[in-house]
């Protein structure tokens, strides 16, 4: 037995090394209380049921432990012979049942409250894509994509030379390029749907999780009480990069929200200028959606290639891979692809229309310039060398 104890001590020491006690303090290990009335009742339910289980557990395991201690053969006891008692059996059927009934009442109440999305003051449609979110402020004509922060995206690639120092990135995999901004104190209704497979939009602090089902719209809502940044994740397996589609919600006071809306609508024509500044605007394609098509006359092939590469890496590489090799059997290679090295019209048409019934959806939502850039890149990069250039005008003509 002393050997066992020794071994235990050894393991304990080992774990102490791994678990840095200080970092543990800072790390939450329980469900967040959250910042909405619903999230607080959910937290309350969670803790109630937890404590009920703890108490029952202590009773049950306590009796068991006592019996193991007291009714062991080594203590010379002789076994009793009883093996039935209708009374106790009735009791231990009825008592748990009553406990459950008591638990069911507040649970049902909270559920009813959660499902009541009437009288909302703002509606946002959230569409899941492999692997990014699209937010559409239905009443305000503002819409944009939101995907994983580019730095994190680079850092997370397997064996990638771009790998950053992950431990130093406090929000590793929890940051996006474009945050969802909502006003505090307002009942915001979210409509969830998807363009490809099922996703699930989850923000713990708001006690929200709802599946995004392609072809259907699900609803939930939140009334956030405190300004702040609330992070979440996609919670339904949606393919290769399911782990890499975070959600960031920024709740701001109403005035700030209004100002933000105005900025989104008008202000970013100016921001459109960054279109060609490839390095600092890695998510051009996504941002561009909300922009009134910026008249960037980037016919210059090098600029197109550079811009195309960025867009490709952000939008297309999830499937076709950064190298262009694709994933055999699932996603075709771009390198040497008959389409990407064939005639321009076919290539453009494929991007504009997508391939029905496959993961290759239509990218017609991208501005002409971006499509031109990414196609030029596919034709002349990734091991292809067709030599021609796709221009925005080509794309516009094909539309």
């Amino acid at each position: 037995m002393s050997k066992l104890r020794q071994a235990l001590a050894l393991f304990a020491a080992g774990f102490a090394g791994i678990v840095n006690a200080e970092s543990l303090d800072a790390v939450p290990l329980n469900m967040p209380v959250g910042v909405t009335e619903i999230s607080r009742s959910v937290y309350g339910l969670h803790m109630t049921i937890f404590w009920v289980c703890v108490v029952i557990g202590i009773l049950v395991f306590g009796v068991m432990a006592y019996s193991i201690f007291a009714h062991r053969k080594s203590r010379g006891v002789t076994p009793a012979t009883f093996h039935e008692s209708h009374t106790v059996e009735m009791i231990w059927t009825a008592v748990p049942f009553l406990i459950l009934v008591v638990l069911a009442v507040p649970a049902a109440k909270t559920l009813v409250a959660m499902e009541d999305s009437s009288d909302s003051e703002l509606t946002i449609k959230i569409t899941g894509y492999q692997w990014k979110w699209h937010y559409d402020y239905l009443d305000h004509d503002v819409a944009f994509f939101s995907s994983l922060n580019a730095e994190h995206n680079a850092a997370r690639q397997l064996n990638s030379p771009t790998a950053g120092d992950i431990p130093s990135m406090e929000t590793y995999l929890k940051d996006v390029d474009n945050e969802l901004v909502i006003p505090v104190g307002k009942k915001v209704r979210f409509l969830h749907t998807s363009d490809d497979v099922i996703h699930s939009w989850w923000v713990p602090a708001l006690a929200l999780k709802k599946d995004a089902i392609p072809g259907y719209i699900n609803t939930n809502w939140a009334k956030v009480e405190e300004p702040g940044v609330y992070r979440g994740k996609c919670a339904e397996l949606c393919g290769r990069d399911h782990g890499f589609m975070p959600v960031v919600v920024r709740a701001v006071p109403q005035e700030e929200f209004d100002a933000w809306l105005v900025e989104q609508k008008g202000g970013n024509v100016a921001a459109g200028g960054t279109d060609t500044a490839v390095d600092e605007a890695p998510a051009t394609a996504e941002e561009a959606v909300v922009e009134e098509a910026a008249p960037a006359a980037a016919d210059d092939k090098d600029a197109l290639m550079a811009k195309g590469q960025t867009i490709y890496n952000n939008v297309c590489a999830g499937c076709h891979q950064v190298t262009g090799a694709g994933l055999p059997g699932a996603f075709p290679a771009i390198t040497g692809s008959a389409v990407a090295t064939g005639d321009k019209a076919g290539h453009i048409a494929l991007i504009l229309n997508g391939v029905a019934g496959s993961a290759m959806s239509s990218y017609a939502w991208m501005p002409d310039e971006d499509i031109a850039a990414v196609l030029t890149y596919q034709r002349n990069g990734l091991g292809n060398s067709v030599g021609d250039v796709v221009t925005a005008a080509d794309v516009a003509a094909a539309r």
Partner: protein
Amino acid sequence: MAGGSYYVPHQAKWPIVGTIGLFVFFVGFANLLNGASIGPTVLAGGTAILVVMMFGWFGDVIRESEGGMYKKNEGMSFRMGMGWFIFSEVFFFAAFFGALFYARQLALPWLSGEGAGATTQAILYPEFSFTWPNTANGPEAIGGQFEAMGAFGLPLINTLLLLTSGVTCTIAHHAIKEGKRKSMSMWLLATVILGAIFLTLQVEEYAHAYNELNLTLESGIYGSTFFMLTGFHGFHVAMGTLMLFIVMIRGFRGHFTAENHFAFEASAWYWHFVDVVWLGLYVFVYWL
């Protein structure tokens, strides 16, 4: 013989053959679906092995049965086996009926804006409103405009055929219980013929659907449930007909006695099961 009063065969080689057969069959089928050129050949090979296995296996069983190796107890095991197998088939069909009910009662109404579907319809399919069966190929009218299969043409005839075949099958059962082998086989012949006509008419019906109604497997959820339910049912009718056919031949060859005719009973139960499924189909797929 091992097993004392209960017959426990010593060693059995057919199950392994069956396993190989199924394996080859599935590999072939998967290759076929993936468009690999070896698919059909492998699939045919697997099917052939399975057919050989069935002849071999059933042959052994028939020999043992005729050799008087089976007594009441073995017969009971076989009956239970068949009974529970049919029970499992009920649940297989239940999955497809479930899909049908779900689509009609929940999915399509939601898509057209009822109940929980209000926003779905408002935002995704503002044009769509559904009537069964006319627009049961969904908001994007998958497969194009189609006409539903009416209930009172061929399907009604088929219903009558199957019901009649249930009666002839029961008469055959009474015959064998009285030890009248010949009469059993004659009535089975009638049943088999009815089953064969049913199948022919179903082929006719499918051709009609594809050629004249534009109703195909690809006609949205209506086409999906229609063809999968009637298709699997048709497959079961074919199997049942084959089983009854073999029993009939065995009857002509002098197999079975008033007491010992498990193969007959199993086939007859199966036939009645197929019959009952058809009634469900007739009511929920064709009629309502």
